[in-house]
């Protein structure tokens, strides 16, 4: 087990090293360097600059060296805990990233806090009796909500709840300080987008367990139905959904970009998009590595959880 975790973590480090080198190579192009110059000196100044002066400016900023030199300098900085400075927002990356990660973390926390109980309950209710009216209703809702892309869900919710009923604000930019009401629409959008998939998986797993021999035995033994479900069925039915819920972290991280941009919520996804459009290489590096880290970590956790929960699986 420990060996497995160790090898997965080692693989993650290898992936991160490859990814960060590739990102430095990609964002080394002249176009992005020019963008940085325009942001710092202004468009007119850059177009008025002679080629020689531009080269001198690049030298001063340390942009004129090959990307691998910058890469090794950056790696040395990371080892000391320095993630570099953002070109666009002229702020240390670590500060910027921490702020945005807290915001996104808040969003993700509420999404999971609502999505997990909702999808598990619906999935279990649907899977208890396959083919029943409740089962078909839940399956229909699940297919419908997962078919709506986040952007469409966000629009429909905004139009109904914010523009029509005026219950919640349509915009989550939090310009006048923190306001929990502005968090409602982004959270609801992500929950609606995500719960259907988990509910369907829970339903499938529950339906499979309900057809097994030991459940039949328990029912025929005369145990109360409630007890059969809660004590016997749930234990095995919740193994598969666990891994899927953990893997949703990866999905949420993608969905967050769209939702944050649409609702103008200052989170991690918006930071990444802004940085990528600008060519703000240190921010992209840090944000991508965080994303990869979370994604791989969720994969590892789901693997470990699956082995711990399911005694039939053992890694040799």
């Amino acid at each position: 087990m420990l060996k497995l975790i160790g090898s997965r973590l080692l693989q993650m480090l290898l992936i991160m090293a490859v990814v960060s080198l590739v990102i430095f190579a990609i964002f080394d192009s002249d176009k992005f360097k020019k963008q940085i110059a325009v942001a710092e000196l202004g468009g007119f100044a850059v177009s008025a600059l002679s080629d020689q002066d531009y080269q001198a400016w690049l030298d001063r900023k340390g942009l004129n060296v090959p990307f691998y030199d910058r890469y090794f300098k950056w790696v040395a900085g990371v080892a000391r805990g320095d993630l570099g400075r953002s070109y666009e927002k002229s702020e240390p990356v670590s500060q910027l990233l921490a702020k945005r990660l807290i915001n996104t973390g808040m969003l993700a926390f509420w999404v999971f806090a609502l999505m997990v109980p909702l999808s598990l309950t619906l999935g279990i209710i649907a899977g208890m009796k396959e083919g029943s009216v409740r089962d078909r209703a839940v399956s229909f809702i699940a297919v419908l909500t997962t078919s709506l892309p986040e952007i469409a869900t966000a629009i429909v919710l905004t139009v109904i709840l914010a523009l029509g009923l005026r219950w919640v604000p349509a915009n989550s930019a939090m310009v006048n300080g923190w306001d929990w009401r502005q968090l409602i629409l982004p959270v609801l959008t992500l929950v609606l987008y995500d719960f259907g998939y988990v509910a369907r998986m829970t339903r499938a797993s529950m339906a499979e367990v309900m057809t097994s021999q030991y459940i039949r035995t328990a029912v025929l033994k005369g145990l109360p139905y409630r007890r059969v479900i809660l004590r016997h069925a749930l234990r095995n039915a919740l193994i598969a959904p666990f891994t899927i819920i953990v893997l949703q972290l990866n999905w949420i991280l993608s969905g967050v970009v769209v939702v944050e941009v649409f609702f103008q919520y200052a989170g991690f996804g918006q930071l990444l998009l802004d940085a990528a459009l600008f060519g703000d290489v240190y921010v992209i590096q840090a944000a991508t590595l965080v994303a990869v880290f979370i994604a791989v970590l969720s994969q590892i956790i789901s693997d470990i959880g699956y082995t711990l929960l399911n005694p039939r699986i053992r890694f040799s």
Partner: protein
Amino acid sequence: MTTTIEALSAPPSVPPVAAPPSVSLLKRLQQPRVSLALILLMWLPLTIYVMFGSYLGDPLKSIVLMPAVPATLLLYLVAVTSWRESTVAIVGVTLVFFWLIVAVTVPFLPLADPDKPIAPFAAPGIVKHGHFFLLGADFKGRDMLSRVLWGCQRVLVWGVTATLAAYVVGSFLGLVAGYLAGWWDQAISFIANVLLSFPVMVLFILILNYLGSSGFNIVIAVTFASAPAIMRLVRGLTLDTKSRDYIFAAQTRGEHPLRIMIYELLPNARGPIIVDACLRLGYTTVAITTLTFLGLGLQPPDPDWGLMIKESAKVAMLWRFAYMLLIPALSVSSLILGFNLMADGLREMSLRD
């Protein structure tokens, strides 16, 4: 009732050549080769029209889509009759074909020019400047009905092309990794793992930023993002069928590994691949719309659903103008729902067999 009795009591001396033509025509259309020809007849003109429309002259551009119209209608008929047993699949196919038929017929419909400003902010269902706005006009005064119908062309063409490209790359790598195993498998699987450890949207943003935003680059980005998952699927299926007798037979005949992969292994893995392809078409449609909304996908001024959302999201945040956002959002949702229901129906049918 009377017809059946007549049919039953028909004299047995009728020569077999004179079979009723209406039934045999449909049957003939259902043959894989004919269906494939119909698909090509629908798809090639549409792709040429959307991707290379600007290079075609005006007279050529107006006739290139003509053969696609009957082909699409016939294909819809074939799809409905052969998937009769699953209601879900029929609903899905109907949704998808609604947009396909719109895509091939839209140049022939009496619609306003989708890029021509007529009356800004005209509400749905009113007449303004001598033009009837069934679905209203957007903030620049362009007819929404015309824009939403024209918008389906680019999503469909780029979505299917991107999915196809991802499948070609993904299945080839999957076949190689599964069949040749060993060193090939390890190298391909490692690359796939690297790509799979990115959240999809992060990968899209990085790739499209580097390449610049255009339809062809979306195809490349989708290939990078989807091919690893497809490769895993095909690799699993290949490992499954690799030890069958007919593969050994082919090996004994001395066939080239490439030939075995493409002619023996791939056709026998087609069931799960087709279901997965329908789902993936849905994902790709979402991805294209979303990327266009984020400003990384297709570029203005041509009508496109993601662009319509992007442009309206800044100006239409009022109840009165909500239709500008709702119409493209619901259109894209209906197309994706169609793909998903089609996948569900196909899976249901394959489980039943």
